[in-house]
């Protein structure tokens, strides 16, 4: 598979990520924002896999592997937050 095709596909995934940022911007709840960030981990893993094969750098697969291994970490930190605070009520318009 040509390097150009792989980098092109990676670029397409990056566009997906950048457009998806709108969800972090809009929210409305904190969980929505975290969910979007989690989704971007999967997209980044996809980009890394494509670049690894496209540029023939197997080391990048290890980077993608680390991302997927640690993907749940942010979530674990998130669910420890107290569930409701004054600002949330105001924020959830």
């Amino acid at each position, binding site marked *: 598979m040509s390097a150009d095709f792989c980098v092109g596909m990676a670029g397409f995934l990056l566009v997906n990520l950048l457009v998806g940022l709108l969800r972090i911007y809009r929210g409305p709840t904190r969980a929505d924002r975290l969910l979007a960030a989690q989704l971007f981990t999967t997209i980044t893993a996809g980009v890394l896999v494509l670049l690894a094969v496209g540029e023939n750098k197997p080391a990048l697969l290890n980077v993608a592997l680390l991302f997927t*291994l640690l993907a749940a970490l942010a979530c674990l930190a998130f669910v420890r937050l107290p569930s409701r605070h004054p600002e949330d009520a105001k*924020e959830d318009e």
Partner: protein
Amino acid sequence: MSDWVFDGLLGTGLLLLGWQTLISRDLFRSIIWFVVLGLLMTLCWVRLAAPDVALAEAAIGAGVTGALLLNAYRALLIDKPPRHPSSVVARHRQTTAWAVGLAAFSTIVVGGISWALLNLPQAGVDLGTLVRSRLAESGVSNVVTAVLLNFRGYDTLLEVAVLLLALLGVWTVHPKDETFSEASSDFAQNSPLVGALLHLLAPLLVLIGAYLLWIGAYAPGGAFQAGAVLAAFGVMLYLSGRLTPTPTATFSLKLLLIFGPGVFSLIALAVMFWGGALLEYPKDWASLLILAVETGVTISIAVTLVLLVSGSPGLKRTYQ
């Protein structure tokens, strides 16, 4: 062509995320934007042919830093429930006149840096070529590891010391009371899925940590990356209540903390007996000594980072 499109998107994304991280309405959003910024930074390292850095960023930027920031945010929320949300919304800023002035100042700074970048003279010393020409003497074939642990071993030794110093600082200032024994979230603690995930991840992460440590000699990887991976797992255990903070450190934990710096300094001094200078490894022994140093440093970095996140002097295993 597609290379340019990709880099252009990446650069634009970086600036957008940087801006949102710093100006968005409440701190939770800022933290999330920052975590996503870390993802894009990793892609930048990949594009700029720095896979070693990408590995470290993946483990530290996406793992440990996010947990640190969310932890601090949580502490601000529960520590003294704010009567009004200013302590977490926090958009207090200088008066408008000041803000305009500072914006002008920042623009001048950016302009100055850009001007300097566009008119940069050729590099005087080519360190890359120098490193490559002496690589055979270093005992490893990954250039970055060679620089980190042989040619500039002194920096790395001091860096490990700084890490320990930061932990001492955290121990000194971290609020010392009920926060240590306070339970973590019920969600992560009671969820059977989290337990299953951790059971599956445990052997894999230890394996991958050891793998990164081993391949550091000839491919992207090494002590920092391995330590960060193990630390990220420790942080996961802490966040899900499998490791709970204790008010005192056990002897064995302290031993683990100084194991890395200890092994490193001992080897650094020991080589002087073979007639070398400080940290000048004998050629035949170099690769073995580097591996020993890296193993020690990996263990200490991992333990230190977990304690930096928990902020407590010690941690103990809690059985579910």
